[in-house]
Structure formats: C-alpha cells, structure tokens
C-alpha cells in the first residue's frame, strides 16, 4: 500500500505552486520509476518515462479529481507513458505476439541452462526476456491490479488473447522458480 501525499499539497500544486509539486515529485519519484522499470526492464528508459510522467502530471493536474487516490491517478499516467514509450520505440505491441513467443522460447532455454545465476538474477533475466506485451500484461494485471478487460484494451488485443498472454508470461517466470507448472 502506497503512502499518499496530503490533499493540501495536491491542491496547492493544482493552483500552480511549483514547490508543492516538487514535494509530490519527491514523494512519488521512486514508485513511478520502479513501475516504469517493470514495464521496460531498462533503467535508462525508466528514467525517461519517470520524467515524462511528472511533466504530464503537472500539465494535467487540474483534471485530477480527489475522488480517486492521487497515487492511482499518477500510476495511470506512468502506465500510459510507459506504453507510449514502448510503442514509440518501434516495438509492435499488438502485432508481434507470435514472433515474440518464438523469439523468447529460445531465450528461455538460455536462461534455464545458466545454473550459476541466483534466483533474483534469473527472474530479472526472465522478466527482460518476456515480450513487451507479456511484460505489460503481467505488470498491469498482477502489480497494478487492472482487470483483464482493461489490460486487453490497452494492448489492443482480445480478452482471450490477453488471458493466454498472461498465462504464457507467468509460466515463463515460474519456470525460473523450478515450480512444476505443467504435469
């Protein structure tokens, strides 16, 4: 559960108080960067997304309604920025599902054979080895708590395809835990 910044600071930022907005940046910067990293598994891209997120947030802060948590609103901007960023990076999110599957099956084999890596490293590699679509699906659903329908909409795929993507991604990650997934 994320600590929320006080409503007064948000209201001051809405009024154009940049020092109040600075407090918002200090409060949420780590969470925004971490979420961006989950989507990209790339520190440099996560940094770009975090900067973009806060600039967009400042531009749109007048549209924030206090009926939602500020962190929820901010993380939504982060998610949208990350997905835009991946799209701009010319990664074909919705059309490369089959290609991604084939490509990452090969990568999975490489990871599985690398026994000297510890669990965390193996999981990190497995996360990086997921296709963008798989990583977005897992992050949106598992970490952010979006519904499958919302996730499918963002990825521009059908609900069943989204379920399949999630299943495939979780299977790949659990493989690194040596859990018996399929009998």
């Amino acid at each position, binding site marked *: 559960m994320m600590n929320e910044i006080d409503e007064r600071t948000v209201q001051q930022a809405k009024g154009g108080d940049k020092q109040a907005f600075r407090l918002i940046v200090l409060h949420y910067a780590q969470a925004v960067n971490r979420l961006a990293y989950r989507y990209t598994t790339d520190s440099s891209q996560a940094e770009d997304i975090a900067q973009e997120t806060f*600039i967009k947030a*400042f531009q749109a802060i007048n549209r924030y309604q206090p009926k939602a948590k500020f962190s929820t609103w901010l993380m939504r901007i982060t998610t949208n920025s990350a997905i835009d960023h991946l799209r701009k990076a010319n990664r074909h999110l919705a059309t490369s599902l089959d290609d991604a599957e084939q490509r990452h099956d090969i990568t999975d084999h490489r990871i599985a054979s690398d026994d000297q890596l510890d669990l965390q490293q193996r999981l990190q590699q497995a996360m990086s080895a997921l296709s963008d679509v798989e990583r977005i699906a897992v992050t949106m659903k598992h970490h952010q708590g979006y519904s499958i329908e919302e996730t499918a909409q963002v990825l521009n795929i059908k609900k069943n395809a989204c*379920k399949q993507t999630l299943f495939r991604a979780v299977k790949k990650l659990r493989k690194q835990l040596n859990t018996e997934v399929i*009998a």
Partner: protein
Amino acid sequence: MNPIEDEKLLMIYFDEADKADIDACLKSPDSCRQLDQLEADMTVIEQAQDQQHQLPEDYGQQLWNQIADRLPETPGNAKSPAHFWQRLMNGLVQPQYSLAGMAMVVGLVLVAYIAGRQQSDLSSGDALQQQLLAQNIQLHLTQSEIFLTQVSNGNGLANASSTAQRLLTSNRIFKQALAGNDGQFTQQLLQELEPVLLEYANGAPAQTQQPEANWVSDQNDRQLMFRIKAMKQQLANHDEII
C-alpha cells in the same frame, strides 16, 4: 493437471474466474495446493522485481532537478480543445491581435449585408441586425477598454498608435451604423470615446511619452470608463442598443 486447468487456476488467482471454476477448485485438495503454490510463486516474483531496481535515496531530488526547468509556468497548459477555445476567446478580446480585427470585419460585413436586405425582410432582419450590431459594439468596447487600461498602466505602448488607429476606424464605422438607429446613449458613448482614441492614434512615439489623454487618472474619464463597462454589460445581457 493439464494446461487448461493451469490457466483456470491463474484466473482464480487473478480473481477473474467463473464461480463454477472457483467452486471446482475449492472442492479439490490438489487444486487448492496448486493455488497456494501459485500464490507463493507470484509473491516471490513480485518481491524479486522490487529488489531488482535499486534507486538512490535522493532520487526524487535528482528527478526534480531534471524536470524543474521543463515544467510549464502554470498547470493545465496541455493542448486540448478546451484550451484552444479559451485561447481563441482570449484572442478575440485582445485589441492588438489581428484575429479580433478580422472578427470585427466579418461582423461588419454581416451587418452591412443584413442592412442591405432590410427592405425585403424588414421584420426578422431588423431584430437580427440589432443583435449583430449590439454584439459587435460590445466587442469593440471590450477591446477599447483593454487597450485604454493597458496604455494607462504603461503596457502595450509599442503598438499603441496602430491599435488606436484600428479602434478609431471601428469606432467611426459603428457611429455611422448607429446613425439611423435609436441608440442615442451608445452613440453618445462612441462620440466621447473617439477623441481619446484619436489622441492615442496621433500620439507621440511609444515609450518616449504618453499622450495627454492618460484618461484613467482623470475624474471625468474614469466616469467614461465606468460608462463603457455599464454599456458592455447592457449589450451583453440584452443584445439591445439603447
């Protein structure tokens, strides 16, 4: 378990399964164990991801330093249709912008066109003509008020002469348009406004000296300013020239 059941198990974990699948899972001890294992695995994955990406403690300040200069002056500067219309409306009341001048010309053309047709369609044409004239005079008075306030405060002096000339031309056209009308109060107001605009139009070069008609400091002209505001209000509320 076969893969299909694994997929159902994942949907149960994600709280996206049908009630029948949930019931079936709960009835089977094996399925419950698998669900527990899945939950444990997902927790490990979640925690591992959190530890993967360490950031310095002062990361927030570093990020602020990166973006502080790139933030717009005020929030809400994102481009959107609402902002476009807001800018357009702001543009219309700024006397120094040609957009306002263009809008006024369009309005005048409409007035002239309708005035030319008044003989054939007198009843409805008269009302429409009055409304259009009232709206255009209101716009003219708004622009004049902004202009005079700006020059009185020492702002906008660079283009004062050309803006005053444009406003003066408009003022005279509206006076002529009102000549055949009952709007004696409006006509009187435009009559009094004309010498003030004339003085700025013929005034000394900007930034060296303000014309003597620094009228906001003068008691009589403060009354004129008040009458401009009152007339604008009247035209805005009733679209009726008095």
